[in-house]
């Protein structure tokens, strides 16, 4: 089975985010970039499917030059090859433009299923997976926590997390799935894996190779526009409630009722 994994490089979740003084974006100095945590589940699942059914796991990402590091991580985990959409005109893509560029690339590949993270933890859109499925005219299932491929490889039975429980869904392949925590435990890259990854393909795709007009990619091809970035509302300084446990608890309960009015 051939599996496409769409992945993204994002700031590590421990990163403090600072906004540029003019609100046009975030300060990118000193950011440590990693593979999006939800993409790790997608890569891991692709490797498990490949190990069971044989075939290829192909990584696809869009991003600047540094995104190569995230591809290398996925290749070191065991993916076979990778595709890197990298062109200055791709910058500033919203969810739609990103899905469109990925769809254009993936159309040229032969695949049985596509795995994405449930969302990237930078833009937090959770849009690209389902939009990609629509543009490729494929079904999708979001938030999967279990994936079983039928022996004839024509269908998948998946579990997905919903509010207050889970759904079990059957879908014909090929299909797009977005992966949620709980699906698997992503492996770490082994040393031999890291060595092998150095020789694996990272195929660059620029605007010409992608084959879309320049006004359909990046900021120009986006349907939405970010007007500005703002910091979160600052919270007033809190109160430390001291004293004996019983007094402190009584005090807290009173404050929550009388001052905060939330109880």
């Amino acid at each position: 089975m051939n599996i496409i994994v769409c992945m993204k490089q994002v700031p590590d979740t421990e990163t403090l985010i600072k906004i540029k003084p003019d609100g046009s974006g975030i300060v990118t100095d000193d950011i440590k970039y990693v593979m999006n945590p939800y993409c790790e589940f997608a890569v891991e699942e692709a490797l498990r499917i490949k190990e069971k059914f044989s075939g290829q796991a192909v990584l696809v990402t869009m991003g600047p030059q540094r995104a190569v590091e995230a591809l290398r991580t996925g290749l070191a985990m065991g993916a076979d090859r990778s595709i890197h959409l990298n062109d200055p005109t791709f910058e500033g893509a919203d969810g739609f433009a990103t899905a469109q560029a990925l769809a254009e690339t993936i159309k040229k590949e032969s695949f049985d299923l596509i795995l994405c993270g449930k969302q990237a933890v930078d833009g937090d859109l959770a849009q690209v997976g389902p939009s990609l499925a629509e543009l490729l005219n494929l079904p999708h299932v979001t938030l999967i926590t279990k994936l079983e491929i039928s022996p004839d490889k024509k269908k998948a039975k998946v579990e997905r997390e919903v509010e207050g429980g889970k759904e079990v869904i059957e879908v014909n392949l090929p299909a797009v799935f977005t992966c949620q925590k709980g699906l698997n435990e992503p492996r770490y890259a082994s040393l031999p894996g890291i060595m092998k990854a150095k020789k694996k393909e990272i195929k660059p795709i620029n605007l010409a190779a992608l084959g879309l007009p320049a006004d359909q990619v990046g900021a120009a091809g986006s349907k939405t526009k970010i007007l500005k970035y703002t910091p979160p509302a600052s919270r007033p300084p809190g109160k430390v409630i001291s004293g004996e446990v019983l007094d402190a608890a009584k005090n807290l309960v009173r404050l929550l009722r009388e001052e905060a009015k939330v109880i």
Partner: protein
Amino acid sequence: MAKGIWVFAEVKDGNIRKITFELLSQGKKMAEKLGEELVAVLLGSKVEGLTGRLAEYADKVYWVEDPQLAQYTTDAYATVLANLCKEHQPSIFLCGATVIGKDLSPRIAARLQTGLATDCTGLTIGDDGLMITKRPVYAGKAFTEVVCPSSRPQMASVRPNVLEMYPPDGTKKGEAIKVEAKIEPSSLRTAVLEVVKSAGAKVDLTEADVIVSGGRGMKGPENFKILEELAEVLRATVGASRAAVDSGWRDHGDQVGQTGKVVTPNLYIACGISGAIQHLAGMGSSKIIVAINKDPDAPIFQKADYGIVEDLFKVVPVLTEEFKKLLAES
């Protein structure tokens, strides 16, 4: 020209979800400002009885009745809604940033080739008549203001519990209009085989008014019992930090934070949670935050409105008793 503010009415267990009324309340204000009509769109099976409550807010209620809509499936819902949008050309389309809304809206946006702002925490109409959505990025470490300048509808999914909900003014009685679903059974590519409710499931974390959360300081899965007891009294949902989830003490669905659920309750009580950046990002928009931790230097206290520096195992049971007394009085 595209006109009308549409709200997708989400049904769960036979009732319209609260987020729908939050959207209708906000949608009404925006409709007045734009001089456009407010429309609710209701899909399902045996849903005619639900149109009345929507008509108290909306000028029109399109309701689509079909046995194939009894259970949410992406293909059926996306097709019906996208076709209705193509026919009537609304200027704005809103849904909840719920599991269903988040599954559905990117699909419709791609089909209609339009812009979508997901998981928004604010909606306004700008001076130029465009909808300006406010949405968190980096799990709330920053916010963005987003517009959809030229394609229509301008789509947004909105997080539950953040928009203010108003009661209907009592005078409105919108028109309920039945619409044929026209779903080709062969176009449905997914089938829901089973829905499993989790045992003892209360309100989902993303919709909870009150959350009691435990972290590494809980020391083990068995100790979450004291949080369950507190939660029982407060009718709260129990959450957990990544440390607690990664230790296997709680289910991954309970995780609050950047790689878990981003929550906005009225009251968040953090017990034995130090407050890693990725956790603070996930709960920092809670209205009131209480932290109980014996380490006075724990970063959680920087975010907390009220803090108690003490062993949680001493504080929580006493707190449970005090809440019990208070709530028995009122």
